[in-house]
């Protein structure tokens, strides 16, 4: 409640246009405290946003080598071990080998972020024909049944090229870069997305780490 300076004995003789000392001090005090509150709130908010986090690094090295995964490369540039999938659940990545090469899928469900599990019979009970699934990925190896990922949280499912086909997931999972280190282990960089697809985009990404050259073909999608 502001004090009305016109009620003070001195104020009584002043005209309205003048600012009394009390009014001036009141104004200055209000401005100063408002400023302090605003500044303080901004600083508190900034404090609550950590400047550095304890998040795990985006890059990691696999515990298996190029040769352990592929079984070596044959004359036509294919993996001797055939098509395989190796999942590193703790780091949320599946490494897939197919006829064209190697790619890594970042296992973050595009619905609400759980880790989908690799399953060898991803279409079962979904009403999706095996033929449709087969077209999404070349399964010539030991795995003749359509394989892919299923999310334990709300049941989204993905073909082996990470395209979603069932459940609430709105779009395919992302592919991230994978390369071969000089010591023959793989380096996966989850900060480097090589295939990003919007909802409804079912294009099969062409990016691959080529088996013959151990270099990627640079065919990124949507990034």
């Amino acid at each position, binding site marked *: 409640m502001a004090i009305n300076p016109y009620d003070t004995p001195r104020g009584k003789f002043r005209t309205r246009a003048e600012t009394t000392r009390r009014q001036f001090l009141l104004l200055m005090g209000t401005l100063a405290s408002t400023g302090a509150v605003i500044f303080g709130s901004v600083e508190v908010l900034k404090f*609550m946003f950590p400047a550095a*986090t304890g*998040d*795990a690094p985006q890059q990691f090295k696999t515990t298996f080598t190029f040769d352990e995964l592929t079984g070596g490369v044959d004359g036509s540039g294919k993996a001797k071990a055939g098509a395989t999938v190796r999942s590193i659940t703790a780091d949320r990545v599946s490494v897939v080998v197919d006829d064209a090469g190697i790619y890594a899928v970042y296992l973050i469900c595009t619905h*609400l972020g759980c880790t989908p599990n690799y399953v060898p019979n991803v279409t079962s009970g979904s009403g999706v024909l095996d033929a449709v699934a087969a077209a999404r990925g070349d399964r010539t190896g030991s795995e003749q049944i359509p394989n892919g990922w299923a999310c334990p949280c709300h049941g989204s499912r993905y073909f082996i090229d990470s395209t979603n086909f069932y459940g609430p997931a709105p779009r395919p999972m992302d592919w991230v870069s994978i390369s071969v280190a000089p010591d023959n282990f793989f380096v996966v960089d989850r900060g480097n997305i090589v295939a990003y697809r919007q909802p409804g985009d079912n294009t099969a990404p062409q990016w691959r780490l080529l088996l013959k050259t151990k270099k990627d073909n640079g065919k990124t999608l949507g990034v």
Partner: protein
Amino acid sequence: MSAPPKEGNPVRTFVDEVWGSIFRHGLPTTDKVAARTALTNFFLHIHPVRVKKSAIRVSYTLCLGGLSFFLFILLTITGLFLMFYYIPSVDQAYQNIKDLQFVATFGLVIRNMHRWAAHGMVITVWLHMARVFYQGAYKPPRQFNWAIGTLLLLTTLLLSFSGYLLPWDQLAVWAITVGTNMAKYAPLAGPYTRYLLLGGRQVAQGALIRFYVLHVIALPLIGFLLMVVHFWRTRKDGFTGGL
């Protein structure tokens, strides 16, 4: 009112003085003394001195607000006990919960009381709100208390959500993953909200300590202050009651 102390008995005088300083009135023998006793006692004065008979009919409020408050007290007490064993560290939290269940004497009872009371409180608060709504008890002059009530509901839900992460089991981690990703979908502020809640981009140690602090200090305190205002307003605005 205590009788004047008997001459020459210092112990008796001392006891009477201490007793008299705590309980300002004798046993309430008349309505007037009963009313004064309630008015001068901090704990008793939470309840009104005089209520309309119609307002204390159980079928009227179904006691839902009172039950919610009772469960909150129960959760505070059991939560306090859980805090003696629980360490908010990703390496220890899950083991602490197991210890509570299998090692600490009566730990299982305390944990289950906390968990069931938490479910119960969410239910009673919802039902309390529904009761107020269907009776139109939110209408003037009680709009302000309806607003406080919505904040209390929010606080209850946030307490329930933040407590859910603490056991650090699969259910906890993925529920918080899903929950904070929902927050991320909010326009503009979404990603910032998630970062703020988790103290990072992953559900990890940073998230656990944040949820712990919110769960055991910030939210209970906010809830308590809101309840103080809520109860004060119920008293001032009076009951809507079969007039």
